[in-house]
Every structure is written in C-alpha cells, then in structure tokens.
C-alpha cells in the first residue's frame, strides 16, 4: 500500500475549501460549506489519528519533497504524538468555532464569506505549523498564520480592532524576525545543507552559539505563547477579536509558542535550554501568579479570560522547562485541554456578550435565573478554567505541578497558589454575572438556542470525558515526550524512598 499523504490532504482540503467558500455568492451557503469542509477535515484527522501507532516510529505520515534544493529547504511534514494531538485539537475546534461564529461576521468590514474562508485558511496554517518537520517550512507557517488572524481581528473585531490587530501583528512579527535570523544562522552553523529538523538535532555544539540561537527561537515563542512580560498583546487581541477568532487565537495559535519551545528550543539547543531553565521557570511562575492576580482585577469578561490564559500558559512553560516526563507530558496535555477549556469559556462568554452587547462584567447580574443553561455552561467552562478535578484541565495541571515539584519544589509550590487565585477569579466573575438579583438589562435574555447547544455540548463532553479518562491522549503523548527528553539528555529524578514494585 502506498502511503496516503494524510497531512497534505488535511491542508489541501482546508485550502481548497477556503477557495471554494470565497467564490460562493450566498452567505448562508458559504457558512454551510465551511462547516462541511471543517467537519470533513475533522473526520480525516480522526481517521489519521486512529491509524497512528503511539509506540511506532516517532514521526509518522512523513512526506518529504524538495522545495528549494540549493538551500536544502524541503516541504517536509510528519507528526509525532505531540503534534498529532495539537492537530486534532485544531481540527476539533474549527467546526465548533464555525458553528459558534454563525452571526459574528455580519457586522464586519468585509463580507461574511471572507471571514469563513479565512477560518479555513487559518486551519490549514495551523495544521501545517504543527506538522512541519523542516525548520524553514515551520517558520513560513509560523509567520503566515498571522495573516488570516490579522484580518479576522482587524476586520471583524470590536471597537478597538485596528489597534489590537496591529499590536498583535507587530508584536508577533518582531518575534518572528528574531526567529528568522536564528533559523538562518542555525542553517549556516549546522552546515548540513538541510533545514530538516531531524538533521539539525545535535548539530550545534558550541555552547555560546547554542545560547544565541536558543534566544532567537525562544523570544519568538515566548511572545507567541505569551510568557510574562511579553504578554500584553494577548488581552487586547483576545478582547477585540470576535469570540470564534479569540478561541483559535488563544486555543491554538498560542500553543505554537509552547509547542515550539518543547520541540525546537529544547531539542535543538539542549544545553542552552538547561542554561536558561532557571530564568524561564521564574518567568513562568511570575506569569502564573501575576496573570491570575491581574485577571481578578479585570472588568471586561474577555480580557479576564485572556489573563487567565496567561496564567495557564505559565503552567505550560513551567511544565516544558521542568524537563521531567510527567511535567512535559502534562504540559502537552495542558495545551490540548486548555484549548478546549478556554475555547468553551470564550464561546459561552461570546454568546453572553452577543445577547447583551457589552463586555463589561458590571452590566450583568442574575443571568442564571433567566438563562439557566447558559449559566450552567458558563459555570462548567469556568470550573474547567479553575482546574476542578473531574474535568480535563485538572489532570494536566496536576501533572505539570507534580512533575515540576520533582525537580523544582519551590516554583511548584508557588505555582500551586494559582489554584486558589483561579477559584477567586472564576467564581467571582461567575457570581457577578450569573448570581444575585436579575439585572434589568438582562431580564429578557434568551437561553441557549439549538445551534449554541451544539457548540457547547461537544466541548463540555470532551472536557468531562478527558477529565476522567485522559489515558488515550496520554498514551499518544507520552512516548513522543519521552523521545524529546532523550534528545535533551535528561532523566527524571528518582524518588527519595525506593518503593518496592507491586505488593
């Protein structure tokens, strides 16, 4: 059997779908077509996942074609467990976002069909960036992703959309250009006439060079993630973006940063990564606590959610740089779970804001009484944001902290205070919007309609199921993470007390 080029098919379907949608004259048809295409991509992605063997080769579904042979640039895509789950995350979120954004693009500056075509282009880019195994190709996707997102924020966003879109674009470009320098330097230093990721592992040995190149990559990823203190573009972008775009921005795009740290920063520059670890862990811990505290003080629902994400990204980077199997697997799982959890939080907040026309918490109150389903969905989404056990986010947060504690006890303990702060920011927001006497302005608010239920239900189901049964995902993630850590040449610290196996 000849190998089916799954990854190219996934991207191709999205891009062709985007082209098709942009030529449709009828908006309604465009929406339905987008939904159909994204569902098709989801089905294909699921089929691909089923065929993935977690304990087989690290990279599977590999395709390699020469692109610019004189510089060793390839169109090379393949997935390992980490990339696979993130592609799956994108494939799951896009149809949900399409369904959720049904009416979001109607007030935009550009046409409705453009919005949906952009969504599909973005999906192709997201798949490409996770699948690329050629560093140059990765860079191309990394930057190209900005374009559809820029237009989605800039043309369909809230009142301050231009400010937010330009800030987002310039901030990301700044990091991207540093990375470009590092990519080119890496190519020259490695001197393998190849940008292929496997060729470049271990190619840079000089410690000083490693550090500089590491920094080039790391700054780009830190801005993307975003890590404190280069986070301030996120609240603006997320608050101004339409809810669906915010979901993809925070849920998937930002994961490219943390994914890049795990994949490129750690594996290509292991010594430099270890050199930088104390600083990165410190920044992560600051991010966890700082993001949470600032979230508590927000008055705008979407900005609040954005700040909770900054806190959560602190957990992810901490898990990546703790360099233990548990922490790194937890961090990878966190990327997926955070995508679902923040996704549903943004979407439900979007429904709420769409009804009332205001992002300010103070404009709400007592919604639970008039729209119990909406409130219930908001509560579950919020609870997953505060990592309630039984919901998927708990598993990943627990693993990150558990794994980090093995090596860096104090940062893990400080990070654990995040669970207290999370309870405050989520429940206080819930209390102010949903509880208490019903505010007059929301008295007529309608509960979730059928379409919205279909948006929320799959995500909540995923969050609950993965909360009790995370094993399928972890089985895919664990081997890939272990191989990554082998390349970094670290081993897990052994328990202090040797416990005999079994009983």
């Amino acid at each position, binding site marked *: 059997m000849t190998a089916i080029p799954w990854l190219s098919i996934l991207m191709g379907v999205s891009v062709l779908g985007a082209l098709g949608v942009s030529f449709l004259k009828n908006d309604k048809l465009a929406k339905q077509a987008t939904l159909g295409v994204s569902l098709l991509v989801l089905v294909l992605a699921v089929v691909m996942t089923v065929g993935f063997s977690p304990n087989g080769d690290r990279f599977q579904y590999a395709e390699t074609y020469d692109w610019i042979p004189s510089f060793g640039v390839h169109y090379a895509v393949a997935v390992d467990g980490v990339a696979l789950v993130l592609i799956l995350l994108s494939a799951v979120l896009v149809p949900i976002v399409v369904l959720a954004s049904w009416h979001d693009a109607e007030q935009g500056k550009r046409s409705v069909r453009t919005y949906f075509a952009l969504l599909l282009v973005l999906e192709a880019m997201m798949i490409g960036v996770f699948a690329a195994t050629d560093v140059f190709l990765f860079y191309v996707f990394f930057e190209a992703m900005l374009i559809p997102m820029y237009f989605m924020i800039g043309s369909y966003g809230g009142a301050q959309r231009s400010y937010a879109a330009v*800030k987002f674009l*310039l*901030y990301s470009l700044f990091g991207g250009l540093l990375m470009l320098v590092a990519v080119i330097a890496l190519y020259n230093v490695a001197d393998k006439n190849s940008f292929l990721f496997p060729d470049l592992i271990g190619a840079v040995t000089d410690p000083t060079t490693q550090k500089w190149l590491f920094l080039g990559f790391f700054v780009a990823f830190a801005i993307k993630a975003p890590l404190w*203190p280069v986070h*301030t573009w996120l609240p603006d972008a997320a608050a101004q973006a339409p809810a669906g775009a915010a979901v993809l921005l925070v849920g998937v795009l930002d994961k490219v940063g943390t994914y890049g740290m795990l994949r490129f920063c750690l594996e290509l520059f292991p010594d430099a990564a270890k050199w930088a670890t104390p600083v990165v862990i410190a920044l992560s811990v600051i991010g966890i606590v*700082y993001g949470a*505290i*600032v979230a*508590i*003080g927000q008055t705008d629902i979407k900005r609040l959610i954005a700040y909770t994400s900054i806190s959560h990204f602190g957990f992810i980077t901490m898990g990546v740089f703790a360099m233990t*199997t*548990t922490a790194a697997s937890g961090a990878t799982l966190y990327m997926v779970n955070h995508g679902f959890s923040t996704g549903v939080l943004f979407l439900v907040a979007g429904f709420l804001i769409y009804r009332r026309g205001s992002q300010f918490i103070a404009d709400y109150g*007592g919604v639970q*009484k008039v729209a119990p389903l909406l409130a*219930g969905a908001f509560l579950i989404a919020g*609870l997953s944001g505060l990592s*309630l*056990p*039984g919901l998927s986010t*708990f*598993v990943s947060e*627990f*693993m990150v*902290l*558990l794994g980090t*504690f*093995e090596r860096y*006890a104090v940062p*893990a*303990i400080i990070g*654990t*205070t995040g*669970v*207290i702060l999370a*309870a*405050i920011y989520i*429940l*206080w927001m*819930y*209390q102010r919007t*949903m*509880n*208490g*006497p*019903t505010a007059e302005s929301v008295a007529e608010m309608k509960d979730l309609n059928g379409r919205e239920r279909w948006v929320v239900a799959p995500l909540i189901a995923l969050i609950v199921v993965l909360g*009790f*049964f*995370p*094993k399928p995902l*972890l*089985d895919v993630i*664990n081997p890939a993470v272990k191989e990554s850590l082998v390349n970094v040449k670290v081993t897990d*610290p*052994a*328990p*202090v*007390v040797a*416990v*005999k196996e079994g*009983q």
Partner: protein
Amino acid sequence: MEPAEILSHAGGGAISLAWLMIVLPLAGAAILLIGGRATNKWGHLLGVLMSVGAFVVAALVFLQLIGLDPAQRRQSVNLYEFIPGVANIGLLIDPLSISFCLLITFVGSLIHVYSIGYMSHDPDRRRFFAYLNLFVAAMLLLVLADNYVALFIGWEGVGLASYLLIGFWQYKPSAAVAAKKAFVVNRVGDFGLLVAMFLIFAQFGTLSYAEVFPNAAQASQGVQTAIGLLLLLGACGKSAQLPLQSWLLDAMEGPTPVSALIHAATMVTAGVYLVVRSGAAFFPEGSTAGLVVTIVGVATLLAGAIIGTAKDDIKKGLAGSTMSQIGYMMLAAGIGPAGYAFAIAHLITHGFFKADLFLGAGSVMHAMNDEVDMRRYGGLRKLLPITFVTFFIGYLAIIGFPLLSGYFTKDGIIESVMHHNAILGWLAVLGAGITGFYMTRMVVMTFFGPKRWDEKAHPHESPAVMTWPLIILSVFSVGLGAYLILSNRLLVFLAPAVGQPAELPVFHPFSVPGLTTLALVAVGAGIAIAKYGRSEVPVVQPRGSFLTVFARRDLYGDALNEALFMRPGQWLTRLAVFFDNRGIDGVVNGLAAGVGGSSGRLRKIQTGYVRSYALSIFVGAAVLAGAWFVVGTL
C-alpha cells in the same frame, strides 16, 4: 497493632461491585442535570432511589467484608488506569471506608427523603436532588479511593457540590457570596493537600495508599512532619478547623437539608477521615504533626462552642456546634491509634444526632416561614410535638446525657486525650460544659417559654416524609454510641484499617473526668435555663457585652481575614492591573510611540525644496569624497 496490609482484591462478591456505590448516584445526577425539565416530575424519586441503591450496595459490601478474616479486610479494587505512571482510579474497601460509606449513604438517604418534603415548594427541586446525588457520589469516591489522586477528585467534588448547594438560592447575594467563600477557603486547604501529594510523589514515586503507607517511615522525619502538616491544612479547609473555619457559618445560607448532610454529617468530617486514613503513616503517636492536629482540634472545639453560645440564628448556632464537635474528632485523631476509634465513633454518632438536630431545625423553619431567628420562636413544643421530641433527643445526645450516643463517644475522647495530655483533656471537658450551655439555650429559646412569633406565622407539624427521617435519626442518636463503644466494637472492627493501641481502653462510667464533664454540662445547662428559661427573652437582639459581641462576630475571624487577606489582596490586584496597563503595556506602547514619534520628526527632513535635496546630495558627495581621501591616505 499496625494496620493490616492492603491486598489486591481477587474478584467476586459485592466488593468487586463496590464501584456501583459511586456510579449510581453519579448517574442520578447526570440524568437529572442532562434530562432537564423533562425529569421534573420524578426527579426527586430518582434521586432518593439512587441514594438508597448506594446504601444497599454499601450494606452488601459491608456484609461481605465482615465475613472475611480481619487480616483480609483491606482490599483494593483497581478500576482503571487514570494517569499512566502516576495514578489509577481504584477503591479501597476496608473497615474505615465502609463505615463512612454506611454513614454517608444511610444518613444521605434519609436526608434525600426529608428533602422531598422540605423542597416540595421549590421549582428547582430536581436540580437540588441532582446536586445531592452528585455530592453523595463525590463523597463516596473520597472515602473509597485507594490513592490520594482519586481522593482528591472526590475531595474537590464534594467541594463543588457544597458550592452548588450553598448557592442553591443563588438569587440571594448572600448565598452566592457564601458559596464562593466556601469554595475559595476550601481551595486554600486544597493547596495544602496538593503540595502534600507532590511531596509524597517526589518521595515515594507513587500516590497509592498501598505503596505509600508501609514505606512512610523510611522518609526523613522532617518530610514526614511536612507531609502531615500539609495534609492537616487540607483537613482544616474541608472540616472548618481553625484557621480556615470562617466559611462554615456562612455556608448556612444553603437549604437546611444541605446543612444537615454536607455541613454537619458528612463532608465536613472529610478532614477527620484524611487524618485518620493517613494517621499511621504521617501522624504517628507522639509526632509533631499529631500534636499540631490536637492543638488545632482543641482550639476549634473551644472556638466553635464559644461562637455557638451567642448566635440567635438557629442554624448558625448548630454550625458553631458542628465546628466544635469536629474539633473533638480532630483532637482524638491527633493522639494516634488510641483516639482513632473514638474519633470515628464520635463522627458517626455526630453524623446522626447533628443531622437530627439540623433537620429538626429545618422542620421548625418550615413551620415558621423560614424564620431562623430563635428570638422569634418560643413555646413550639406543643405545636411541633414530633420535631420537639426528636430534637430533644438529639440535644441530649450532643450534650452527652448519660447513656445516649454522645455520652459514650465524647466521654471516650476525653478519657483517651486525658491519658495523652491532661491540659488538652481538661480543655475538652470545658468545651463539653459550654456545649451544655449553648444547646440548652437553643432548646429553651425554641421550644419553651412564651411564643414570640408574630401573627403571620402559623406553626404546624411537618409532613410525614419529613418527620420519619427525624424519628429514625433520633432512634440511632439514642443507641448507636453505646453499641459502638461498649466492648470496643468499633475499635476492634477498625483495627485492620487504622491499627489499635497496645492496651484496649476500658469504659469507666465514674471516672473523674467523666463526672466532671457531667457536672460542667449540668452547670452550663443550668445557666442557660436560668438565663433564658426563667427570664424573658427579648425579641430584638440586645447589644450584649464585649464577650457576647466577640462570639457573635465569629471571634472576629471574618474581620481578621478581611484585614489580613482581602484588603491587601484588593490593593495588590489594583496595583497589578495598574502595573500591567501602565507599566508593562506602557513600555510596549511607549516603544511603539517612540518609534512613531521619532519617525514623525525624522520625516520633516523631506521639505519638498529642491535646493535642500541638492544640498544634501552635495554634502553627501563631499563626505564620501572626504572619506575616500581619508581611507586612501591610511
């Protein structure tokens, strides 16, 4: 005697079906929540059925367990792999967990039944039963878990159920605030529990009881103490012990059955469970951690009792009493194997008589248009005869009236603590005296004296669906203590799970501490009768002395929290938001503005005058030529 080894269950019998205990109520909750309004008609019945079903399973498991040899009575049932390499979901069936299961499902079922009547007028009754079922499932997972991770899932699950039920009437701002407060304060405790788990995992590489407990002694002394203290922090949060007690009194905003089930009989005792469960490993006899547990217990039992003396809200009075009684359990749990059996015995009997008292209070409120102020009660014993009799039995049980439940269990605690540390023992005796005062005050103000309610209230006895649970609970409140304590029944039964002291305690009916306790209780009751029975009780709360206000304001616990955490926290938050907007984002925007500004200034060079361009060309050429000359001469 050390606890028995935890065996892996070989399969067969009710034990391998123990998971049904959790799944039944969980399914009930899921059906009621997902089913929505379609299940309104029969939702409460399903809720009761699931709870009763869980009780039946628990009883079957219990029967199978007592059929086994004592050394075989700790069996773990692995259900599935949860986080590979970290934890499984598994159940530990042993005498300790099954005792809890029986208590939770039995009292829980009674309270479910009671709630049918109590919540009959509430349009959201179905949701209430869904949450109750959710609570039962989570609580059972908590006590049945065979590792700390599964325990933690249950631990937070009951926290969630508690949050939802305290805030059940969420349209009342006070209820919403109380619910949030309970959750947040509990999270502070959970922080301790989480860090304890990290430390255990870093030390032992596992979180399963079967692997941690036998090896605990190999860890260094300091680590053991640290784990113990962190676990205690978790226990303090859940069990409303000092310094994390403040949420429990506010939690009375929830419907009364919730207060009875969650905030008296079961959930708040989870901390005691945690200490006893980890006791042999991390709170061994004479350890520092154990000592801290006893100190926390004594401090809370006194604080709770003092708070109870000044409350006019019947439920808050009972809440103070709950704090106090759990303090007794903690105290006993802290002294090691000598106290475990008494802690658990008191926990079980307290579960019955406190549920009885709370439901009785609920019945009174039901009769009085949800009035909770005892100053507006009075003389209700004739109008609510069944409620009165059952409440009175509960009252006798809690003050330790001879031969009733509380007499045996509380006396047991005092005796065993007395052997351990006389100061703590006498403080516990003092607490018993205060208990006599505040409980008598409560009974006198509610059921005796002239009526003080206004004309709108029409007190009436509650329907049978509410009184029968009261009757059953009061029957157990009478006899259970004697059954558990005499001939050390519970102690011997629990021994495989928690170990037992070298010499078995012997029940002395006429010991010095026992008699002193009785005397002090009588004095306390006498003062209460003299103060509230003989003289008139003002309907409006008098200002009271400094001490009364001190107790009424929960010993200024809230004020302290507000001053120490809330206000600085608010300032910190404001500061952080300001810093983020002006500081960090200021730098970012400042950079952007700097670049923009300088380019704005720089472009002014383009004047549009040909001659200035020409001049710059000439200057440029001259500079180039000059540079060429300079380089050429070098």
